[in-house]
């Protein structure tokens, strides 16, 4: 393109405003100083030149590419673009094609031995970079950046770099079957305090796991989801298990204890909503602490494991936490093993695993019931809370749980109502039968009476229904007067005793 004219001051020379080609029309800076007509000419020339060059380039690349493919394995040809006669295409398409070929080419120039795996690495990587992050992800990223500001500069940058590489790498490897992931395990941060290291690890975990949650929680390659449903169904079927059966030593009549048990239930349900393994563990720990509090209030002494485990089982059955198995598996797979194996949270987590294992294997013996009772309760034909036992034990049970009391009275009321309903129904049936019988007897009676009367009266009686219809059809006059006026009617019958 030609150089732009140099301007001096505010004054603009008239010649500068004219088209550079000297056609006499005014030029425009947007058209590089040409008038619209000349600019179009110039531009289309340049374009044609560009297109030509592009085409040549594309053809060259195409050839190179084909050569590369021929030398590499012939199997991975799914993504190759096939040779196309470019002359048939319009200009725009040609340009696009050239760009595409260029990109494909780039993939292969970066790695000298193109293989399926490198393709796999390239594509999803690009994908994760443009992917929209969820709210939690961006929040975690922000928090992590904040934390890193507290660290020394080079260390912080290194950690962030590693984390990012890790996330992108894992997001790709999710496509592969299950893997074990402990990238930072073999790291000790020389010269740092153990607390500092721990804190760093926590933050790294928080960041990575929040970002990766969607990929690694309940992955499709495992059977977690199926197990989730199985355990959920199982717990639902076990709703009838009473604390007494499990040997739970909590006092369910105290509102304080009930409140704590409710809190424990809330905490364990909340576990599913957390993304980071340590947050999930914290939920379990909180739940356990509430249980211990409930036990202490009930028994007036610190609880031992003998009390704690049954209570935890009771809480799990009552809560039926969503996606329980997936959550346990997720924590097992991704939580820092040290934390899981030795610490306090690890202890509670182990207890929870134990509780779930117990629920899965639970049978009549472990509840000290007979097989028959167990089967009946499982099938829903009987409930241990229904008043099928002797009244004394029922009263005990009711006093043990105030929630049950109104339920029980309601149940009794319903039973009473049902009884009355039955009574009403049978009475109605009796009445129905009596009415039918009475109807028949009346007809019989009338026939009997009619047989004793003279034939004329008989005829008029037999025409009685007709007459009635006439009376009903007559538009005016009260019924009685109408009947009296009728001459065809016999004198009114005198009442007679039925027996005669």
């Amino acid at each position: 393109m030609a150089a732009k004219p140099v301007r001096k001051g505010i004054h603009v020379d008239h010649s500068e405003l004219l088209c550079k080609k000297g056609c006499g029309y005014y030029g425009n800076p947007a058209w590089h100083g040409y008038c619209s007509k000349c600019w179009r000419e110039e531009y289309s020339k340049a374009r044609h030149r560009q297109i030509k060059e592009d085409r040549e380039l594309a053809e060259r690349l195409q050839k190179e590419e084909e050569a590369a493919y021929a030398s590499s394995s012939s199997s991975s040809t799914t993504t190759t673009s096939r040779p196309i006669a470019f002359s048939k295409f319009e200009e725009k398409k040609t340009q696009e094609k050239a760009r595409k070929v260029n990109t494909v080419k780039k993939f292969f120039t970066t790695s000298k031995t193109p293989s399926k795996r490198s393709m796999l690495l390239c594509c999803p990587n690009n994908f994760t970079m443009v992917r929209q992050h969820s709210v939690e992800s961006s929040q975690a990223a922000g928090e992590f950046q904040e934390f890193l500001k507290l660290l020394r500069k080079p260390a912080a940058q290194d950690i962030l770099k590693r984390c990012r590489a890790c996330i992108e790498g894992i997001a790709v490897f999710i496509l592969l079957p299950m893997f074990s992931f402990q990238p930072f395990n073999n790291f000790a941060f020389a010269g740092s305090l153990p607390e500092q290291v721990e804190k760093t690890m926590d933050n790294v975990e928080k960041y990575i796991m929040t970002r990766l949650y969607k990929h690694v929680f309940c992955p499709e390659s495992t059977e977690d989801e199926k197990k989730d449903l199985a355990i959920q169904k199982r717990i639902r079927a076990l709703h009838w298990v009473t604390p007494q059966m499990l040997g739970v030593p909590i006092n369910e009549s105290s509102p304080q204890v009930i409140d704590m048990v409710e809190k424990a239930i809330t905490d364990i349900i909340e576990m599913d909503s957390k993304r980071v393994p340590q947050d999930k563990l914290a939920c379990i720990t909180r739940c356990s602490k509430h249980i211990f509090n409930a036990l202490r209030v009930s028994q007036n002494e610190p609880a031992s494991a003998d009390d704690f485990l049954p209570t935890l089982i009771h809480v799990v059955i009552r809560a039926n936490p969503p996606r329980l198995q997936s959550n346990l598996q997720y924590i097992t797979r991704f939580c820092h093993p040290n934390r899981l194996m030795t610490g306090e949270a690890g202890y509670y987590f182990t207890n929870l695993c134990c509780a779930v294992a117990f629920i899965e294997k639970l049978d009549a013996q472990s509840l000290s019931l007979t097989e028959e009772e167990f089967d009946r309760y499982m099938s829903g034909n009987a409930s241990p809370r229904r008043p099928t036992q002797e009244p004394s034990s029922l009263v005990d049970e009711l006093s043990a749980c105030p929630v049950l009391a109104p339920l029980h009275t309601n149940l009794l009321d319903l039973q009473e109502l049902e009884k009355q309903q039955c009574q009403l129904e049978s009475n109605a049936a009796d009445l129905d039968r009596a009415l039918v019988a009475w109807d028949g007897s009346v007809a019989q009676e009338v026939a009997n009476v009619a047989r004793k009367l003279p034939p004329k009266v008989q005829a008029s009686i037999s025409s009685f229904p007709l007459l009635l219809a006439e009376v009903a059809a007559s538009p005016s006059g009260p019924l009685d007067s109408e009947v009296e006026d009728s001459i065809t009617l016999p004198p009114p019958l005198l009442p007679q005793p039925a027996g005669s």
Partner: protein
Amino acid sequence: MNTQRVDVKLVLLGREYSGKTSLVERFVFDRFSCTPYQSTIGNAFVAKRMEAKGKNLTLGIWDTAGSERYEAMTRIYYRGAQAAVVCFDLTENTSFQRAKFWVNELLNCEEHCRVYLCATKADLVGDKMARKVDLHDMHDYAEEMKAQLFETSSKTGQNVHELFQKIADDCAEKLVFTDQTPRGVNITKDAKREMARCCVK
């Protein structure tokens, strides 16, 4: 949740009423459950700092439910434990038989776990009649299994601290060994880009 760092996982095994909880209580709070207390909310899990061989280390003591209905799940508890104390009641022979079962399980499943036998309620066997577990049987068995045997009483505090001190000493030795392997990378320096294959592991 501020999680305390714990170095050693120590599991308590034993039948119901074999004195596991009392043992922990005597060791950690130095008291016996006849007296009322308020401060703790539970001692199913206790972390106790100890000094052993000139090192500070924290024992995480895991109490387990001894009831037979949870027997099948016990394995979940002692997975990865560095030490296990198997308790049995000197006044009850069946608890000793159960203890044998657990020792076997431990030796089969957790080869790195040290096993300590703990005969509890020693204060009750002052007269020979109350003792239901034969002294010689007990010692022979411990020797056979290469397990350390302690006769303790949580009521009087006899041998309780000795037992845990021994465990701490043994574990401290082990910890020194693992701690000295230098596998660290100084993150303040320009670390090599070996993390690029972090997920292939």
